[in-house]
């Protein structure tokens, strides 16, 4: 039996081989104990503060919005150690790994951001990390592969399937089913089987909590909307969690529309997908008429995933959150605009959220306050964006 709710309405669950159930139960129990253990909480908070750099700043943009009464704030997860929000939950799960007496960590990575976060946490806490990465992604993300290796992680290429994130998850789960006695599977997003979506949300919820405190201090009221990009959905659920019970705050997720929602090349599981099971959870997924999983696509590797976390599927179905979609071109434009107007180079993932927030700001009523979760910085994307734009930068 589960001690925490394993489903969000009809979504979520534990669709994994029976063999993995004891390991997931052990993880759930360790998480419950840790949440009630002041010592664990203190160690986690200390790491977040002294090592990772929390709380992160919240920045009011100066030059992006034409209506002077509309305020667009950026929650600066790009300033976190590691360059993205991912460090939060990785530190939490790495501490859980130690708490369970395990010495090894398995992880999957697409663009390499979760792999880098895992590698740094394992280096810090003395855990042995092996990270599965699609062979194609290893080629595309060479600097992150080097970062992981520098920090002592083993990077294992996955040639199966399309050689991208989905296949890396498959391989990580296969590894775990043979090694759960000594290894923890440190899943990188708010997807997968229970209890991962809940753990990842709780280890990212300080994003929304800090946002609430910061906006109350600056504006004396809650924002009208919070906006975040959604691949698997970890930064978005971290931003949303503290506002779900505040009906005045619109929750807006932004999916990758890739080359357009009318094409097959996108990663918009909620907007264009259908219900099904991938990687242990029932959610919206991209699949064909038989139920075979389709390849997703996005210019941003971190959003290139053919499913979405089950809580997002639920928030969509009950109408509590809305999910927009932004194309490669719109994201690339926002990427350049933030660099040019505010001196901040955002991750391509976060550029999706920003692009949508800019459209909202243009049409917003006077006095509207919007917060965008700037989930990561764009250093990792420079070579990729350079190769797309050449030297034709929008000025």
């Amino acid at each position, binding site marked *: 039996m*589960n001690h925490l709710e*394993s489903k969000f309405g009809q979504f979520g*669950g*534990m*669709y*994994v*081989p*029976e*063999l*993995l*159930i*004891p390991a997931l139960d052990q993880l759930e129990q360790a998480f419950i104990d840790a949440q009630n253990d002041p010592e664990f909480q203190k160690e986690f908070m200390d790491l977040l503060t002294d090592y990772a750099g929390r709380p992160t700043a919240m920045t009011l943009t100066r030059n992006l919005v034409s209506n002077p009464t509309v305020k667009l704030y950026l929650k600066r997860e790009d300033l976190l150690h590691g360059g993205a929000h991912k460090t939060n939950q990785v530190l939490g799960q790495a501490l859980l790994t130690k708490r369970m007496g395990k010495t090894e960590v398995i992880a999957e990575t697409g663009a390499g951001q979760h792999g880098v976060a895992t590698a740094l946490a394992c280096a810090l806490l003395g855990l042995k990390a092996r990270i599965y990465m699609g062979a194609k992604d290893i080629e595309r993300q060479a600097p992150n592969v080097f970062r992981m290796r520098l920090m002592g992680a083993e990077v294992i290429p996955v040639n*199966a*399937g399309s050689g991208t994130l*989905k296949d890396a998850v*498959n391989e990580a*789960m*296969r590894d775990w*089913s*043979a090694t*759960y006695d000594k290894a923890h599977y440190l899943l990188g997003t708010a997807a997968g089987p229970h209890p991962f979506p809940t753990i990842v949300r709780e280890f990212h919820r300080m994003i929304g909590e800090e946002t609430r405190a910061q906006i109350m201090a600056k504006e004396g009221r809650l924002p009208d909307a919070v906006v975040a990009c959604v691949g698997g959905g970890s930064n978005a659920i971290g931003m949303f969690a503290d506002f779900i019970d505040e009906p005045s705050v619109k929750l807006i997720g932004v999916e990758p529309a890739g080359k357009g929602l009318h094409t097959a090349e996108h990663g918009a599981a909620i907007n264009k997908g259908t*219900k*099904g*099971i*991938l*990687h*242990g959870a*029932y959610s919206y*997924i991209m*699949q064909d*008429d*038989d*139920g*075979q*999983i389709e390849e997703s696509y996005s210019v941003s590797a971190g959003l290139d995933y053919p499913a979405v976390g089950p809580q997002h599927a639920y928030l969509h179905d009950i109408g509590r959150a809305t999910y927009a979609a932004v194309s490669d071109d719109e994201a690339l434009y926002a990427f350049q605009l933030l660099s040019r107007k505010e001196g901040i180079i955002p991750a391509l993932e976060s550029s999706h959220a920003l692009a949508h927030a800019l459209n909202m700001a243009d049409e917003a009523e006077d006095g509207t306050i919007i917060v965008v979760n700037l989930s990561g910085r764009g250093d990792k994307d420079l070579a990729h964006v350079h190769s797309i734009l050449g030297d034709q930068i929008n000025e």
Partner: protein
Amino acid sequence: MSNKNDRYGDMFTRLTAKNEGAFVPFVMLGDPDIATSLEILKALAEGGADALELGIPFSDPIADGPTIQQASIRALSHHIHPRDCLKVIQQFREIYPDMPIGLLLYSNLVMKPGLEKFYNDAANAGVDSILIADVPLREADRFIEMAAQTGIKQILIAPPNASDETLAEIGQKSQGYTYLLGRAGVTGAETAATIPAHELIAKLTQYKVAPPLLGFGISKPEQVKEAISAGAAGAISGSATVNIIETNLSQPEVMLSKLREFVSVMKQATKK
């Protein structure tokens, strides 16, 4: 239509009378293509298989090692649909009306058409049992219910790390047979099964689970013999069977005769 047969029950009765265990080979339907697939099933039966365990290819088989992953990829490269797989079973069923046939597949292939349609189509094709690799007991109730409605046996997995609570639940809910995992990990002949101690099998008997067939890492007749003397009702061999297909893709006649030979040797080892 509902499957009113109890082919597994009949098989175990017949084998017990002969003092034999069951040998059950696994192959992926549609591997390497639909036409050869039917010939492969016939070869397995001619070799002496007591029952067949058959996969439907899936794009993301998380419980399978490289051999069975490759079998899925070969089948999917020919754009095999689940309905094509059921057609092969239907054709085979006409030739072998009494042999138990089980499906082993992943949940999304069942979810997409919907449980009711999938189980009914399977029953109509002559399927006796369904095992869903990524549906653990905790998610199994609605599948078990649909199985009951359509006369199909829902096969449950007993892993080596199962708690007493899990084994007791399997005891209450299992039908047909119980898939006893020979070891942790994914499918594959590379890592041999650890034949479970008499203790685990004794526990299975104590909880009255459906007859246990040992699978995962079974590739040699000695393992079959050992499994049966440890108290298993038989053994399932997947990757070793699929290996024979993979290594003889260019010579189908040789492939079929090697499959017959392999099954015959493995079957021989079930005789006590």
